[in-house]
């Protein structure tokens, strides 16, 4: 039992989190060091950034140690789910936003919204376009109609709704 408890915990979400922020803190510090901390005896643009990044690094390290320690305690070990949530929900939603940004200069707001709605609907469903193509199509039409309604009522007159 004790052997079990003393065993090293694998890299879990509890220990990965502090490592991510340790990396971000180091990146922040790298950027902050490019700016002067003091200029002629007055606070420069880099001072607060250095303090903050040093604090992020320090806190992330303490957090990592604490997470490593607590993940060896049986009561706090998270129950591992046999079926982790599928990735396509996230991928679908993010791909929809990316598509919106990519398509907007070429096809205008209405077309970009329709494309984004189609892809996002795929990401929100079962992940199979073949099975849900009709729902995706309806979502695209609804997205285009909603954008048109927004464009005619709330958006500035210069908004490019259609391709140039």
């Amino acid at each position, binding site marked *: 039992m004790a052997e079990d408890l003393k065993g090293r915990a694998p890299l879990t979400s509890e220990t990965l989190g502090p490592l991510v922020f340790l990396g971000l803190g180091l990146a922040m510090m790298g950027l902050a060091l490019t700016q002067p901390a003091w200029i002629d005896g007055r*606070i420069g643009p880099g001072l607060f950034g250095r303090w903050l990044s040093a604090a992020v690094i320090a806190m992330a390290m303490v957090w990592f140690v604490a997470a490593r320690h607590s993940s060896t305690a049986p009561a706090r070990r998270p129950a591992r789910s046999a079926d982790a949530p599928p990735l396509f929900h996230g991928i679908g939603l993010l791909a929809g*936003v990316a598509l*919106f940004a990519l398509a907007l200069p070429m096809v205008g707001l209405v077309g970009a919204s329709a494309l984004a709605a189609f892809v996002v609907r795929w990401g929100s469903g079962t992940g199979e376009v073949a099975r849900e193509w009709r729902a995706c199509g309806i979502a695209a039409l609804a997205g285009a109609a909603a954008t048109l309604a927004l464009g005619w009522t709330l958006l500035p007159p210069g908004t490019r709704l259609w391709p140039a």
Partner: protein
Amino acid sequence: MTAWLGDIAALLTLQNLALCFTGALVGTLTGVLPGIGPAATLALLLPLTYALDPAGALIMLAAIYYGAQYGSSTTAILLNLPGETSGIVTALDGHRLALAGRAGPAIGIAALASLFAGLATAVFIALAAGPIAQLSLLIAPAGLAGLIALGLFAAAVIAPGPPLAAITLILFGAGLGLVGTDLGGGQPRFTLGVTELRDGIGFMPLVMGLFGIAELIRCLETRDRPERIAPLGWPWPTGQELRASWAPTLRGTAVGALLGVVPGVTTVMSALAARGVERAFPPTGTPLGQGAMAGVAAPEAANNASAQSALVPLLTLGIPGNPVIAVLAGALMIHGIAPGPSFIASNPDLFAALIASLVVGNVILVVLNLPLAGVWASLLRVPFRTLVPLIIVFAAIGVHSVQNSLFDVWLMLGFGVFGWLLVRLRLEPTPIVLGFILGPAFEEYLRRTLLFSRGDPGVFLTDPVSLSCLALIGAGTAALLLRRTRRAEPYARLDEH
């Protein structure tokens, strides 16, 4: 007082009433849907207010805010699945009442308790905020920096998850707030040479990505469909139910209004405290936990009172006490309104608009919630996935239309990816937003303090407000460490064996 009431009456134009009604309607609509909390709701609906003047925007945003709080009780009572976390406490007795065929009266009591709490707290804010703001104008920059630090510390301690994680996220959020042009010297900093970042990271892309997109992904990944919705019935409670509810409503209002002022206290904590207070009183009718109306009235009153009185530290000190208020603060900044010690003195019309919105909006919400409870219940049958494409499209258009900038859409995407990573790491994004808003303010007060003291940091120990804040932070840290040590002891003993 008469002049002030006159200001409020002048603001109740047909347009502002329509805005208040629309905000309350849209807020309730999204609050009813389980999963998306009020912070995400407010972020996603922010674009609706762009075309409005500041008073109209404030009225609508406030209405969306408490509309979302209000709507969550319907879902909590009918499905035992709160739309917002504070609904968990209402659900304890509310859902039992629904299963016993009293869903309608439970929703009615929730609406009436919220109405009373909303109106009472509006009066409380109107009376208390002005004097507090006057006092805060006397605080030196060192004291204000200390107060911000204390607010952030309280938020970190109370945030879900380990406090260490929350503190790290707040500090990182403050770092994000530094991106842009340094106000002290006018030099760009942390912009990576990207011209678009010279004005800083936009609040909209940040909050839409972290709250909006990430929250939608989380909802899709974890959402359970309700199997059965309890029948609603006539929503008006009986005389006996009203008698059993009035005292808990009064107590819940007092608890919520007082706790809400404390930075870091969330609505769920106020609701839990109100329920705890009810345990000290002998039950009138059904005991708590077995379908008591007091178990609906007290937390609902506390939840609404707390949600509204959380505006006090924002309006008087510029400190958003909880994540939803942080989003509201960012929204106000987008409209050119800077919350802080001078907000009420500089913008008496906006303050009056807010109070008017609180009074009128709460009445509108009862009108919306009682007769339309059946409509809200039927909305729960609409599959969530069919709504997601429209929400994303509105979010993308909203972010793009602020500055007609595609860069902002890419930025939102970047923060969406980061938010999704946080979801996967089981971390809450809210401390980042709090840090993002308060970091630059903290730096500004720090800069002013060191300028006045000619670089001597000892001023933080001589200023009484700053010293008190530092002492409270120190005491809180010591208490946290002590609690952690006590928790770790049993494991250490286990290891010895």
